[in-house]
């Protein structure tokens, strides 16, 4: 319940306050969001399986976002930024789909 409320509160805060992201960080925002979605789905699945832990979630979320952003950053420096961004999206996308399928099975038994 807390995460869901927090999520909604965050969306409201984002819309109301409209914090401006520094120009330098803007290219990494979409990647960070995909990594965040991956962490969220993973956490929800762990929650359904009864293994969810706050600390692991926090650590995995932060490290996911940082690593994804770092991969894209390094890619930008060596000229393959968009390709590496695609790679990150593909890998995280596969994980999101797999986790979503497991969540669906656990929730609806289908």
């Amino acid at each position, binding site marked *: 319940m*807390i*995460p*869901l*409320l*927090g*999520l*909604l*509160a*965050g*969306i*409201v*805060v*984002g*819309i109301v306050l*409209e*914090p401006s*992201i520094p120009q330098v960080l*803007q290219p990494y*925002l*979409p990647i*960070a*969001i995909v990594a*965040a979605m991956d*962490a*969220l789905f*993973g956490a929800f*699945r*762990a929650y359904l*399986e*009864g*293994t*969810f*832990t*706050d*600390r*692991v*979630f*926090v*650590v*995995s*979320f932060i490290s996911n976002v940082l690593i994804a952003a770092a991969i894209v950053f390094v890619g930008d420096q060596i000229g393959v930024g968009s390709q590496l961004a695609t790679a990150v999206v593909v*890998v995280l996308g*596969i*994980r999101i789909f*797999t*986790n979503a399928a*497991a969540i669906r099975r656990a929730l609806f038994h289908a």
Partner: protein
Amino acid sequence: MDLLNQIIRQPVDPDYAVVAARGDEPVRGRWVLALLAVIIGALFAVAALQTTRAAPALKSERSELINRVQNAEREQDELRVRLTSLSGEIATLRAAALGDDDASGVLETRIEALDPVVGNAPVSGPGVLIVVDDSPSATADARDRVLDIDLQVLANGLWQADAEAISINGHRLSSLTAIRSAGDAITVDFRSLTRPYRVEAIGDPRTLQAQFVESPAGAWWNDLAQNRRMRYEISDVKQLDLAADPGMVLRHAGKATS
């Protein structure tokens, strides 16, 4: 493949299982979780806001650029009209300056004979119309597109077939006209063309088409039409009107030695 299998087999962070197996996790740090949830929500909102905010800006930038291009083109057309009227004025002044003695008469005949040939005067008469275009599958294979060299070969073939005047999509060719590609488009006289390419040539209606087809250029285009399925249509036209090349300028002038 092993990497992908690994991703599918283990989509959840393995640490969850490790910590749960240890079973000694105290309930604390709820506020960190809430804070993180707020941050994630804010991330979503900010990204969505930025994308929707950037869309109209990009659109207006684009239309602004299109506007500028259209303005520049209009200005260019106006300048061309002015150029034509000024050239007419020059011709009148030249005729007045030459007077009507014998030497001037000779000069005027030479000017009249040379003007249509070099592209400085509009010409009309019978000729051929050649329409060429990319093949229908051009999007799949870049080699199926008409290139600048194809149009160059076409124009040179027409000169070879004794064409007196040629224009491509309304741009008169002179001996100084460049046909080259710039980006995706072919330019003639540095103005880009749009497909299909209509090449008009004035010449002897009895021989022009036959000579062109027999020339190397005709063979080149036959090959393109058959092997690359490009559009290539030749037809005789009774009356063609080709404008003068507006790019003609006076580059060199000397005092008449008479």
